[in-house]
């Protein structure tokens, strides 16, 4: 069956009334989660994972994708009006959008963010439609050695490249891998680190770790260190873009999409880099640079917002075709698939074609819903910011309880949740990244299985990883990712000292 008829079938599934309701609720929850500080899409999806035990796979994946998407739209609202970015991806929006809001152009900033998100999201979805099946066809040819190397690449980028300190990134990664070790070994069935507790044979629930690290830790951190009234909020002007705003925005949207999309597809994790790159590009190509960082340039909001959304959408490509998550939320979506006994990967497009295409179709529908939810109804969401901080964080704890208790009905998990929350506070206070923990925990067992399968292919020889061209190439990429940034840093440091010497 060709691509378009499959996509049409996907639309037929996604547009059934019940799935439309799931999509809408997902988008609305996602927008709310994006607007509210202290809670992001990863933790929202994690808290709602218990529904995977009752709701069918297609509906819940549509729902979760709606949350993932919606949070990107909602996040920009808070960044612009409050200057508190909910996620790293909206840091730039917080910078430039808040400047616009200060000079009374909040409405235009919100509009260009919402329309830009829609344009980028839709273009990226078209690209996912076109390229995901192609990549899946190619990925079928990959064997265990290549998969193992891809996962090593994901580990390396998420822990060593992103973040400020390689050491702290590595600590987080290996802690995640250690958590992933708990439970039954996938290949031999050997129980590891279960301390005789039967519940631990299935391993530690991803909900527990994600909700503990993100939600409970956030609440505990707030009460410990962030007492005091919230920042002042900028008033909302009419959400409207002038003709000039449109003319300035659309090239920035397209450039942002072009920058963001590739970053989402590679296992380089996060939308931090593409949004920064997009901002730098907009600043470079702008004729009038005086607005950037002063009164706020609309391109500086339009570009990064588009880049953020394109990157977010593009993370679905490695997730669906390779089973490799490149962001926190994608990692938890992978956990959701696993709850259904579905392992994302190249076979997904043949074994669960209905689900995949319905999911992709729902992205088109969700983008339209989100545009409507976020443009005319933005005033409604802004009201959420009036919730007093104590009620917000304490309310998050109620939802955390639902998510964790609903998954396994164990009160002991609630104690563990508190302990993980404490660890999260320490990590936040001492600047340890959290994404490597989640990625390590979810990908660790998969990577171990692929490694051991690869070694049995090579009859126990480690050379199997360098004898196959694809695997050797990936190994070289991993090495380059580890070594190049260091060399470049050293090089630029020595050249700048040389310059300084020359100058003095």
């Amino acid at each position, binding site marked *: 069956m060709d691509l378009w008829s499959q996509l049409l079938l996907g639309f037929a599934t996604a547009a059934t009334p019940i799935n439309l309701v799931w999509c809408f609720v997902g988008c609305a929850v996602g927008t709310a989660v994006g607007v509210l500080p202290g809670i992001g899409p990863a933790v929202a999806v994690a808290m709602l994972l218990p529904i995977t035990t009752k709701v069918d796979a297609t509906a819940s994946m549509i729902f979760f994708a709606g949350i993932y998407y919606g949070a990107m739209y909602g996040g920009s609202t808070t960044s612009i009006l409050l200057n508190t970015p909910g996620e790293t991806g909206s840091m730039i929006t917080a910078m430039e959008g808040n400047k616009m809001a200060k000079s009374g152009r909040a409405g235009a900033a919100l509009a260009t963010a919402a329309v830009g998100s829609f344009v980028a999201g839709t273009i990226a979805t078209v690209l996912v439609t076109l390229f995901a099946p192609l990549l899946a066809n190619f990925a079928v040819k990959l064997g265990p050695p290549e998969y193992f190397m891809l996962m090593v690449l994901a580990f390396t980028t998420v822990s060593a490249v992103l973040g400020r300190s390689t050491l702290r990134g590595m600590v987080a990664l290996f*802690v995640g891998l250690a958590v992933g*070790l708990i439970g039954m070994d996938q290949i031999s069935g050997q129980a590891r680190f279960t301390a005789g507790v039967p519940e631990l044979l299935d391993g530690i629930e991803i909900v527990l770790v994600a909700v503990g690290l993100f939600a409970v830790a956030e609440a505990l951190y*707030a009460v410990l260190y962030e007492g005091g009234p919230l920042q002042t909020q900028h008033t909302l002007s009419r959400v409207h873009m002038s003709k000039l705003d449109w003319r300035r925005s659309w090239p920035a949207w397209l450039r942002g999409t072009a920058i963001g999309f590739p970053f989402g597809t590679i296992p380089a994790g996060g939308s931090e880099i593409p949004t920064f790159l997009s901002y730098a590009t907009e600043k470079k190509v702008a004729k009038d640079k005086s607005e950037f960082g002063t009164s706020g340039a609309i391109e500086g909001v339009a570009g990064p917002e588009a880049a953020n959304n394109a990157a977010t959408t593009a993370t679905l490509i490695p997730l669906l075709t390779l089973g490799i998550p490149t962001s926190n939320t994608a990692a938890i979506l992978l956990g959701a698939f696993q709850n259904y006994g579905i392992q994302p990967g190249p076979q997904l497009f043949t074994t669960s074609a209905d689900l995949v295409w319905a999911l992709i179709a729902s992205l088109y529908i969700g983008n339209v819903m989100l545009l409507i939810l976020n443009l005319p109804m933005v005033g409604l969401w802004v009201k959420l910011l009036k919730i007093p901080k104590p009620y917000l964080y304490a309310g998050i704890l109620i939802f955390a309880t639902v998510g964790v208790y609903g998954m396994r009905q164990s009160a002991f998990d609630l104690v563990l949740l508190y302990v993980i929350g404490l660890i999260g506070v320490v990590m936040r206070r001492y600047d340890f990244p959290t994404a490597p923990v989640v990625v390590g925990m979810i990908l660790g067992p998969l990577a171990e299985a692929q490694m051991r399968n690869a070694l049995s292919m090579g*009859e126990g020889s480690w050379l199997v990883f360098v004898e196959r061209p694809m695997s050797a190439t990936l190994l070289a990429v991993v090495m380059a990712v580890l070594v190049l940034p260091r060399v470049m840093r050293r090089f630029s440091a020595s050249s700048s000292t040389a310059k300084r010497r020359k100058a003095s």
Partner: protein
Amino acid sequence: MIRRGGAPGPQTLIGIGLLAVAGVIIAGAVGFPSSSGYSGVGPNFLPWVVGCALLVCGLLVVWQARTGGYRHMEEPSGSDHGYWPGFGWMSAGLLANAALITTIGFILSCSLCFALAVRGLRHADRHGGVVPLRGELAQTVRDVLIGMAIAAPVYWMFTKLLAINLPGLTNTGWI
């Protein structure tokens, strides 16, 4: 110079904690079979790798902590010192929730957790003595009711709409 959140004491403790975890993992790895069939490595291989890596990481963390503190640290947000009374209230809420959820049910247990956490957060906000708290009892009763107003619909949505088990005070699925 001691930076915010950069006191060498806690930083060293984190490193020691990592070393302890590494020790547990390596001790476990020693006990796992190395039988591997065709693959050359058995179920003890990854535990060894993770254990040794954490050992090295732990040593490096301790070394960094003892030689001027962690490198390239982002200043943590918020105040320099933790507000522990507020932390105590929220911790009490979370642990009470864990202890009571199976006996008094989801709604009541979560409302209690909510009220205790709100109390901690509110104290944290007024920390510095701007406004004295008046009518604490009335306020707490109101917080419990607000907690119930959030917990009850969530509970009904899960038990009635999604048929997911959450503990109740009764077996009706309503409370």
